[in-house]
């Protein structure tokens, strides 16, 4: 069990990080260029880490599968980034951000990590403004804030509906500066194929050049995995098409424990599925819940009439609408956390009130008409228009909504051909983020020495459910302000090591294994494309390891995934050649890993006999349908140790969670 040492520093919560920083070993500036660091992934976590480490003087090699580091999927985050600045004077503080995050995560995250996250959050905003990130501002020139789900303060900073893009471009600009100086060597269109361990330490990776197909050996003194989450195990998700678990899964197979794989965030506001040929789902930012009200018809006949196309939502009278979030959760209303909002949508649709005209009959409305009216009246008052006409009110309100959310409305209209200023948006939950990930200690180091994991790829800060606008915060906190300190402590022992050679047995055998596997797939002479298997896996995952889970369903899922996996290895068909650009081959490797991970997710969900956050077990719910946690038996992090090809054999280790600074309560947003 010694491997599971969380290394949480002693002392009072608010002093832990400061004291820890004061006592960690350093690498002197003149020694840093003797140290090589590999960073896999260039999203907010990887990009900010690579830039910062290079600024400090280390030699950084950064890898991404996209054609440029600027395209990592952090770019798609829309709504904002949290920080405990209390610029609005509405009672925010480091402690309150810490408290909201722990509570939002349903008391399944580590206190010390989350407190540190809240502590450095304010620095992130300062850093980003210094980099030229154009956050939204008030007329007085100060930064503006909005509110997000699960909190009662306004602490979210934003750049229109493109906050992730602007923060990522900030990190990318910092990286670009170091690339220009030659301090970062950038490997675009490269995929990490395996981790190389030399004498028990992570010392490099095997990568495939996605343009030439060449297999390359890269060595370093430490390897940082920042490869994001694994939502694409469901085939349909809001993740980018290329987002994958492979880097994280490869290190798991080399000894890194994988923590809480069953914690998946299903985001409540996505555009509903339109058909079987669909390739991906599109998110509508949570920020819309600041202004939109969610409803379904109160009468089931109205729901049926809408689905059959005989009734329009705008023609349903106010009293015949069921604003079910406002009804069930008056204190937080439409701004309840994501897991709660998603389950409530599922509950209404399962009961027959869904409004989408397709096989699933799923979908609920996100309606802006109240807000347009309210803001229109406010605007009229501000502009000294007395007795404004209904049209004037509507126009002013629409202009307000347009300024706040214009790009999101446009995106919605392009996809659905519906105008959301007139007809309410149709939304339904979709897989969005994974709280589970590689287990790391307080220093963000996995159970493999020298292998660090940051951002969504690790499990560390969000417990069983992540609050909105906290992913960007965590990615940048890890990359800018945590890892650069903790990795130095580890690397201080390596200043005399010298370059790590790539001609060792460890590198050669890892390389051979990768090449053999490529040969296997290229010569498999299978019958079906990789997507065929990925869709099958996705169906099993969504139906049985999705929003509502049962022990029977999970047992079936494990069995069915095993069958798909066996079929995949026998029958997957990979066209083309290995020594050139081959996108089917790339997908094949990713899906091979998803098939193993999917099984572990089901196993983890079956083992956790409680409901918490994004993990909802139908056999563990209260009579009114709320999640029922079991703190006596399950207040731990489930850490899985790989045992070979049979995923059922993985061994469970438990890291007990201790709450000294927060009272553990039943989570209520009522």
């Amino acid at each position, binding site marked *: 069990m010694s491997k599971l040492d969380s290394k949480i520093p002693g002392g009072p919560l608010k002093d832990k990080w400061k004291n820890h920083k004061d006592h960690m070993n350093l690498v002197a500036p003149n020694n840093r260029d003797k140290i090589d660091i590999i960073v896999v992934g260039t999203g907010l976590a990887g990009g900010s880490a690579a830039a910062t480490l290079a600024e400090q003087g280390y030699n950084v090699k950064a890898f991404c599968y996209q054609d*440029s580091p600027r395209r990592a999927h952090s770019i798609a985050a829309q709504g904002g980034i949290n920080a405990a600045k209390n610029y609005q004077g509405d009672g925010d503080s480091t402690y309150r951000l810490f408290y909201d995050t722990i509570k939002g995560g349903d008391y399944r995250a580590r206190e010390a990590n989350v407190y540190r996250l809240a502590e450095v959050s304010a620095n992130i905003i300062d*850093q980003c403004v210094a*980099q030229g990130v154009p956050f939204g501002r008030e007329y007085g020139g100060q930064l503006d804030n909005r509110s997000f789900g699960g909190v009662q303060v306004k602490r979210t900073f934003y750049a229109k509906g493109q906050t992730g893009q602007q923060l990522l471009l900030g990190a990318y600009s910092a990286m670009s500066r170091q690339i220009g100086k030659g301090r970062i060597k950038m490997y675009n269109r490269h995929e990490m194929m395996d981790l190389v361990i030399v004498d028990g330490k992570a010392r490099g990776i095997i990568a495939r050049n996605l343009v030439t197909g060449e297999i390359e050996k890269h060595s370093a003194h430490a390897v940082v995995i920042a490869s994001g989450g694994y939502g694409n195990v469901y085939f349909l998700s809001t993740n980018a*098409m290329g987002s994958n678990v492979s880097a994280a899964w490869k290190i798991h197979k080399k000894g890194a424990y994988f923590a809480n794989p069953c914690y998946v965030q299903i985001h409540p506001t996505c555009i509903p599925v339109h*058909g079987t040929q669909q390739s*991906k789902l599109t998110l509508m930012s949570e920020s819309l819940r600041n202004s939109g009200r969610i409803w379904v018809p109160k009468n089931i006949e109205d729901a049926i009439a809408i689905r059959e196309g005989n009734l329009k939502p705008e023609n349903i009278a106010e009293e015949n609408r069921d604003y079910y979030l406002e009804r069930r959760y008056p204190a937080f209303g439409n701004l309840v956390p994501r897991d709660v909002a998603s389950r409530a949508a599922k509950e209404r649709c399962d009961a027959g009130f869904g409004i989408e005209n397709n096989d699933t009959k799923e979908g609920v409305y996100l309606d802006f008409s109240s807000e347009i009216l309210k803001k229109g009246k406010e605007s009229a008052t501000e502009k000294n228009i007395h007795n404004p006409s209904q049209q004037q009110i509507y126009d002013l309100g629409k202009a307000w909504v347009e300024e706040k959310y214009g790009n999101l409305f446009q995106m919605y209209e*392009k*996809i659905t051909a519906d105008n959301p200023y007139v007809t309410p948006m149709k939304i339904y939950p979709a897989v969005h983020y994974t709280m589970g990930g590689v287990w790391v200690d307080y220093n963000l180091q996995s159970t493999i020495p020298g292998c660090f994991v940051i951002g969504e790829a690790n499990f560390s800060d969000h417990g069983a459910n992540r609050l909105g606008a906290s992913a960007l915060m965590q990615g940048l906190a890890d990359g800018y302000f945590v890892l650069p300190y903790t990795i130095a402590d580890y690397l201080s022992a390596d200043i005399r090591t010298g370059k790590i050679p790539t001609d060792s047995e460890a590198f050669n055998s890892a390389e051979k294994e990768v090449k053999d596997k490529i040969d296997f797939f290229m010569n498999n002479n299978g019958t079906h494309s990789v997507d065929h298997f990925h869709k099958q896996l996705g169906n099993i995952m969504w139906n049985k390891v999705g929003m509502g889970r049962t022990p029977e369903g999970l047992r079936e899922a494990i069995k069915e995934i095993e069958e798909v996996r066996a079929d995949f290895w026998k029958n997957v068909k990979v066209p083309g050649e290995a020594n050139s650009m081959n996108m089917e081959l790339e997908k094949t490797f990713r899906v091979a890993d998803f098939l193993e991970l999917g099984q572990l997710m089901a196993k983890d969900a079956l083992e956790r006999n409680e409901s918490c956050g994004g993990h909802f077990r139908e056999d563990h719910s209260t009579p009114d349908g709320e999640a029922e946690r079991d703190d006596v038996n399950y207040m731990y992090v489930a850490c899985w140790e790989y045992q070979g090809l049979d995923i059922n054999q993985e061994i469970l280790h438990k890291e007990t969670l201790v709450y000294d600074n927060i009272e553990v309560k039943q989570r209520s947003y009522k």
Partner: protein
Amino acid sequence: MSTKKGLNLTLKIWRQKNNKTKGQFETYKISDVSTDSSFLEMLDILNEKLINEGKEPVAFDHDCREGICGMCSLYINGRAHGPDTGITTCQLHMRMFKDGETITIEPWRSAAFPVIRDLVVDRSAFDRVMAAGGFISVNTSGNTLDANAILVPKEDADKAMDAAACIGCGACVATCKNGSAMLFVGAKVSQYALLPQGRVEAQRRVLNMVKAMDEEGFGNCSNTGACEVECPKGISLENIARMNREYMSAMVDKG
């Protein structure tokens, strides 16, 4: 706009094995494509069909499929990102096409963007221009000024945001008859020039970025404005004017 549910289409697609071989158009038939499908989902269906027929699928760049990562490209019926405006290829939907239509699909065409395979091009020239000056020289420290210490007029912040919305897809270059990257570079120069944090090294930045842009083989701007029309993010020509102004004043001071 098409209202019919299943479209039958003829696709003329540029196929090229790599940057050393010559490419050519190949013609494919595809049937019963839902008007609700996206353009790239239509290509997914084609690729699935090609794989099942034992042929090589068409390589094309794509990732987020929600119009923000800038990875997708494609010249469709002679227009960057296709016939709709204000969107990327991945946001283009098949309801924009008519049943029986022939659709021509090409890669970005520009000397600075060599073809890698089929519809995939190498846009790393953009990264190199950025590395020459597309940043503010500030290290990560946690000790920068408080974010509200410098007030920024809302109008300036909004204009900087409009410029910063560029996704680096390269439609401007592909559309421009001169293969100019001035909309891309102008947007980045403008974003920083409009903010007090970026003013400090504004002159150095514009000189370095323009120099790198020229070295990469991008053409010059002759003010036809095609780039602005085809830009999926509506980046304004104003940014090119601002870059020219910044460049002139920097040349006078430093050139």
